[in-house]
């Protein structure tokens, strides 16, 4: 049995982030107190998640537990649920968030007006709380409420950098997100009407009974389609991803890193939970949603890279590459087997570590080039900011799937997951094609930053990277190599987590 401190960790982490968000506006603005508070809270949440993971894996048989929010048991009150998968995800989410904050500290201070920084910290804490709630929740309506918090906070951290472009990008992002959450809300209402429950387990039982008696198949299919579409819009699956490059490319580096690395992943994990815990994989297969997701994933893998090839702005290129990576995750979900979902979760983690690193590195490099974001302007910047250069190279190799880098592990596990599956030919072909396409735009970027620039503007001297930047980048690099070289225990843990999900 798990000890009582670890039992309370999901609740403590969500409430810590929430209370930090609420108390931040009351704090004094001087001495960067709000920033420090956010960083420390997120760090503590990460440590708590690590302890939860440790306690769960050493607890013997029962790997997961439910935490009732209030005095009332399952179908009457709200509930949280924690298992190894949730613990792993919140661990990586919080550390990735922390490193994106610390790594981009100086560029945040340049981009954001002083009187907005405090509110920026509030929004970061709220985002953290909503991500944790999306990860841990066991109640579908709670998930909807926290999706909305996530939407508003995510759009605000795009608009926090004051420029006309970000207002436009944030609006576009907001409109698409609202379409998505509207569809999710309609689907939740339909499901409530069909099952009479809002808790995931009870809905699961009711849906299984409905499918077994073949009643209400049509409404079930429609609500599944709506909820999938809604969450796909929010997690930027390809045909719905045109808002992403604007939002992620124009905002400040911290926001880009957090949005690409974490916000998309929260929604994808919610979708996985809904597939696995509300409908059940067999029902998903009967309703044919797995095929749709699989095909869209394939499309996203190819088209995201094709779009990325045409970009000249380095941040937009990385943003389009996120679309391709989201395609990988959906490919794993579309396999509709526990192994496929485990591979998808591993890729969620890998991408949550690599993409913030790439954005942080790109930010450092464009600072070294004098705030220019065009790819050609970055020529030779490796030599002025070695840490950022190393980050970009590692991230690029990782996205291409070169062995010993993080992306290789998840691509390998995706391949392994699709071996005993009839769609093996398609997924292998797409993985190969997408890797080649990734190389087509990441290799030139790497070559550009490594080329010595002879007519570089000598009278411009970029500030050297701060110590905080170096430390964060080192942590990012360490996480990457850990994921690339020693991911098997992690994959086993995720598989166990998926099995008890």
């Amino acid at each position, binding site marked *: 049995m798990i000890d009582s401190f670890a039992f309370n960790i999901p*609740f403590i982490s969500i409430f810590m982030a929430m209370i930090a968000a609420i108390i931040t506006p009351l704090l004094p603005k001087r001495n960067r107190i709000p920033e420090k508070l956010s960083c420390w809270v997120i760090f503590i949440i990460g440590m708590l998640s690590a302890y939860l993971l440790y306690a769960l894996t050493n607890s013997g048989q029962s790997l997961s537990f439910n935490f009732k929010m209030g005095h009332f048991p399952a179908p009457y*009150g709200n509930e949280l649920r924690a298992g190894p998968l949730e613990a792993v995800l919140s661990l990586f989410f919080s550390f990735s968030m922390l490193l994106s904050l610390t790594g981009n500290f100086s560029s945040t201070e340049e981009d954001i007006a002083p*009187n907005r920084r405090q*509110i920026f910290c509030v929004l970061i804490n709220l985002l953290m709380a909503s991500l944790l709630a999306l990860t841990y929740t066991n109640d579908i309506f709670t998930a909807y409420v926290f999706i909305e918090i996530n939407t508003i906070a995510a759009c605000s951290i795009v608009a926090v950098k004051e420029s006309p472009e970000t207002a436009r990008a944030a609006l576009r992002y907001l409109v698409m997100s609202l379409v998505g959450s509207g569809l999710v809300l309609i689907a939740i209402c339909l499901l409530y009407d069909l099952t009479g429950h809002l808790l995931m387990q009870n809905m699961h039982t009711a849906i299984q009974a409905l499918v077994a008696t073949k009643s*209400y198949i049509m409404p079930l299919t429609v609500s599944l389609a709506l909820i999938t579409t809604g969450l796909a819009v929010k997690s930027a699956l390809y045909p719905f991803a045109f808002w992403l490059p604007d939002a992620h490319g124009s905002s400040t580096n911290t926001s880009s890193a957090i949005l690409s690395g974490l916000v998309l992943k929260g929604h994808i994990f919610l979708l996985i939970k809904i597939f696995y815990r509300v409908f059940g994989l067999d029902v998903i297969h009967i309703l044919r949603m797995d095929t749709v997701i699989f095909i869209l994933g394939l499309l996203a893998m190819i088209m995201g890279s094709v779009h990325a090839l045409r970009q000249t702005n380095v941040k937009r290129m990385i943003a389009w590459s996120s679309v391709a990576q989201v395609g990988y995750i959906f490919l794993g979900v579309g396999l509709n087997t526990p192994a496929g979902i485990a591979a998808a979760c591993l890729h969620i983690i890998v991408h949550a570590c690599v993409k913030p690193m790439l954005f942080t590195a790109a930010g450092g490099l464009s600072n070294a080039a004098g705030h220019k974001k065009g790819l050609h302007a970055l020529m030779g910047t490796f030599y002025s900011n070695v840490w950022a250069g190393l980050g970009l190279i590692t991230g690029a190799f990782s996205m291409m799937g070169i062995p010993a880098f993080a992306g290789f592990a998840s691509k390998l596990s995706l391949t392994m997951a699709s071996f005993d599956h009839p769609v093996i030919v398609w997924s292998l072909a797409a993985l190969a094609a997408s890797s080649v396409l990734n190389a087509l735009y990441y290799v030139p970027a790497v070559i550009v930053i490594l080329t010595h620039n002879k007519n570089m503007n000598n009278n411009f001297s970029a500030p050297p990277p701060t110590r905080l930047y170096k430390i964060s980048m080192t942590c990012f690099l360490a996480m990457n190599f850990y994921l690339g070289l020693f991911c098997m225990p992690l994959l086993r843990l995720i598989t166990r987590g998926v099995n008890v999900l």
Partner: protein
Amino acid sequence: MNEEIKAIWRSFYDWVVGNGPRPENEVIPDEPPPDLPFTRKPKDKFSRFHEATLKERYNQWMEIHGLHMFSALYSGISVLTCIVIVSLLLATVAELPPFGDERNPANNEVIRRYVERGGKETGAQNIVAGLILDYRAFDTFGESAVLFTAAVSVLMLLGASRRNNADDEQAMKGNDSGKNFMQRGPPSVRLHTFRRDDAILRGVASLSMPVIMMMGCVVVINGHLSPGGGFSGGAILSTALILCANAYGFERVHSFFNERTFITTSSTALMIYALSKGYSFFTGANDIHSVIPKGTIGNILSGGLILPLNICVGLIVAGTLYGFYALFSEGEI
């Protein structure tokens, strides 16, 4: 006589349209002659010309960037999507459990427990209040957090930046207030201003504001006994504030409710909410006995935490809704 009637009419017209008071010694130009056919004023022509060029530029730009195709495709796909979604949903609705039937799946044991034991377990006469503030309190906490998120976001977008711009300009140009006002930007955005010295509005406001305030407080405080609660009561309270701002000017409200008070009350109220609900979640999950008394149903002091939570929520909602109004019309709270 004629002039006087004209003047009264004009001031009435101004009041209806919402213009500010006119200067006393204003010279009123003669009415322009009505437009004759086949005559066009040069200014009009120019503006049309200008419009045409802008539109041409827009079209050119759309063509260059291949957006005509894209937007046509986009509209086509959107229309198709909407038609598909609506027809699918209609087909779905036709298959849903029938309207108002008590054998529907939604009327299950959960509802039975809420109704049969809700009074005893939460102490609230209003089952919905007991449901949202006790059984499913985490959702409602999230909902207040949504409001808080929106409030800080709007404050960040509209409040801080404009004042910042004004400050910057003041720093750059000294205290040239006229110029400052011109360059502030918002005047073009501020769509209308009310007259602040309106006797009728003031009279009505002074009569109705106490009533509205009272009504709001009643709805908030009786949230666990009758329909209403923190959200609806807070909305009523905020209308009283908005009425006050319109009748007596924002400065009057500003004297007791400014940005600092807004942030402090919202944060503090939400903090009390979070801590008290956190206590109840914690005790509930760990099966510790909670010290909060439930009271007897139907009394004003009953329902455990529901009454204080309703008051907190009412404060947050009243402040936030007034804050939205002030930020949108004035650019500051």
